[in-house]
């Protein structure tokens, strides 16, 4: 009898692990292992001997932290970091502000489900367009000679602005991201709004609150956790912006190979064929993303993912 109990307790102790196994396995295979490998690569480098032309003239050696030092002292590194900070200051407030405004407008119109359904889908639709395609579409609109707006403005005798020139390019790229991301964030906020019981609004109306006051005093505080969550997602997306500037790059002189940190990683790995310093830069970006997201969540007191708190 004691034998079966032990066996049973062993089996019972193993149960949680069995449940965790699929998740752990996938995490190890597709996240931990590649990150570990990138970390390993970032500490290595290729050493060439002599002219480097003969076969086997390349050997891989330990590099210590020299890849990190080289990456961080690259004169293009800091400008790219400042650039995405500016980019984030434009994109995040504009995108979340628009998403919140649209979610509130849709929610204020609950009585007309067919109309608001159509509006919801049309606001969400740009999110379904891949970033590369969206950037190409906008790219055509930005170029004065092929843009229908350029044509129309020309007919009106107004000069066409060079939206890809150095003074506008940051806004031009940010616009593509705002256009593509607003719909997704709107859906998240709208879904949060829908879970609010209508009785709450009714009592507010009985108390004499206007729609504006309801939005400001009730709705926004209630969706605050969702707002925080979408903020964290947007912040991560900002740190990793790549597809839009990369696609717009050939259209102008103003987007360099190192316009954003992730573009620098791409250049090092695939243009300069130096996978090791690319790995070092990606590790730095990953750490920064990690620190910023968790630091922010800590700051707001874990309210984002915990709906009951508020």
């Amino acid at each position, binding site marked *: 009898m004691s034998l079966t109990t032990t066996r049973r307790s062993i089996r019972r102790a193993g149960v949680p692990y069995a449940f965790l196994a699929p998740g752990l396995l996938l995490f190890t295979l597709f996240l931990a292992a590649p990150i570990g490998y990138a970390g390993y690569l970032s500490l290595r480098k290729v050493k060439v001997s002599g002219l*480097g*032309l003969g076969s086997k*003239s390349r050997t891989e050696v330990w590099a210590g932290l020299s890849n990190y030092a080289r990456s961080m002292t690259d004169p293009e590194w800091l400008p790219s970091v400042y650039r995405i900070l500016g980019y984030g200051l434009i994109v995040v407030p504009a995108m979340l502000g628009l998403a919140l405004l649209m979610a509130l407008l849709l929610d204020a119109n609950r009585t007309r489900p067919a109309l608001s359904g159509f509006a919801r889908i049309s606001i969400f639709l740009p999110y379904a367009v891949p970033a590369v395609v969206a950037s190409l579409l906008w*790219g055509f609109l930005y170029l004065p000679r092929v843009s229908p707006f350029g044509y129309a403005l020309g007919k009106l005798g107004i000069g066409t602005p060079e939206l890809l020139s150095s003074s506008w390019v940051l806004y031009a790229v940010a616009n593509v991201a705002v256009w593509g991301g607003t719909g997704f964030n709107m859906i998240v906020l709208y879904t949060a709004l829908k879970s609010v019981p209508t009785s709450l609004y009714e009592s507010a109306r009985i108390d004499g609150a206007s729609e504006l006051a309801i939005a400001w005093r009730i709705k926004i505080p209630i969706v605050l956790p969702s707002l925080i969550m979408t903020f964290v997602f947007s912040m991560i997306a900002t740190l990793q912006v790549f597809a839009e500037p990369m696609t717009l790059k050939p*259209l102008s002189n103003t987007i360099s*190979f190192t316009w954003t940190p992730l573009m620098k990683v791409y250049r090092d790995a695939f243009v300069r*064929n130096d996978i090791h310093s690319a790995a070092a830069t990606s590790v730095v970006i990953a750490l920064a993303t990690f620190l910023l997201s968790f630091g922010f969540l800590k700051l707001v007191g874990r309210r984002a993912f915990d709906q009951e708190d508020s």
Partner: protein
Amino acid sequence: MKKTLAPLLASLTAAALFTTTACSGSDDKADSAGGGEKVALTYWSWAPNMDKVVEGWNSTHPDIHVTVNKQDGGDPAVTKLLTAIKAGSGAPDVMQAEYQKIPTLISADALADISSQAGSLKDKFPAAAWNSVTLGGDALYGVPQDSGPLMFFYRSDVFEKNGLQAPKTWDDYAAAAEKIHKTNPKQYLGTFSAADAGLFVGLAQQAGASWWGVQGDSWTVDVNDAATQKVAGYWGGLVEKGVIDNKPMYTPEWNAALNDGSQVGWVSAVWAPGVLEGSAKETKGKWKAASMPQWDAASPATGNWGGSATSVTSQSKHPKEAAEFIAWLNSDPAALKLLAGTANVYPAANDATSVLTTPPAFFAGQSDFYTIAAEAGKQARPFTYGPNVNVAYSAFNDAFGKAAESKKASAFTESLATIQKATVDDMKNSGFTVAG
């Protein structure tokens, strides 16, 4: 648009291609069964209609079947090949490789030495082209396929209206650019494209530069030499004056400008007719080709933009058959005819002059088109490419992008020091011995 998408698509499709090419590689039964069995080769190329050229081989060589795998272009193909070499599998048997990428590929151990199969190939090609596949040594890393001697293309109707002749010298070109832009402020004789390092290198080559060189056991890097300074200063001056445009080539904007008559000239290479046919359809019949404007009309010289060889990769299981195929492809008269006629390339082989008799369709009225091209081909100055061309070219894109945007001649000439530093630093960091 292909160009715009290329870098992204390259990385996205790389994984998919690895699987397909790996499969076709393992299908080869010749390894185990020995000779007599059919050998299957894969061939990466971005030349248009290359599959139709290869049909000519497949129909006459039942034992060696070649499958063409169309690539996005030179840069993404090299990126993919280098990734496959690093991964240990996934490379094709045969690969189109631009001349400037060959040292990079050799240095990454990506190309097979096929000198034992060379036979009498050497005599069939001009010395400059042969030098780019041997790097002056005994090994042979490919067979030259096409070359891209620089030529000048212009709208003859616009020149006539302005009372201009095709420019003989760069001074003539500058004067023509100024006159055309003054007459019609919407018109430009050209644009300085920071996106096309290859063209700038061709122009520097014409002026007598050679950005890399080998001195005993070390490399030399000479991006910031007097010849390149002269070229950068010249184009910077034109941009600063505003008589030529400063926007990159190969954009929808540039295509539209060629088509609507805002861009009325193009310093380009022998393959330009194909591009113009696609971009400037509505101006057909109005263009003429001429020799390049010269720095010194008494000793005409030119450079190259583009041009590539066909190489066997180090992962090929059938290097012998692959070498046989690329020798046929680039030197057999029947293949040369197909290359010129179907794939629209300008073959590097000496025999090419005999198959190129009728001018390209877009220049149908100009019977001396290929005479000018052949003349230009002979005038190309020697230029050595180094093992990190991509580093220099991407530094060029960034530095000259800024310079073109600033429209200051001084920014153009100062950019060269930036490129020189980036190139040398990268080589030293990798461990190459760099002199000076």
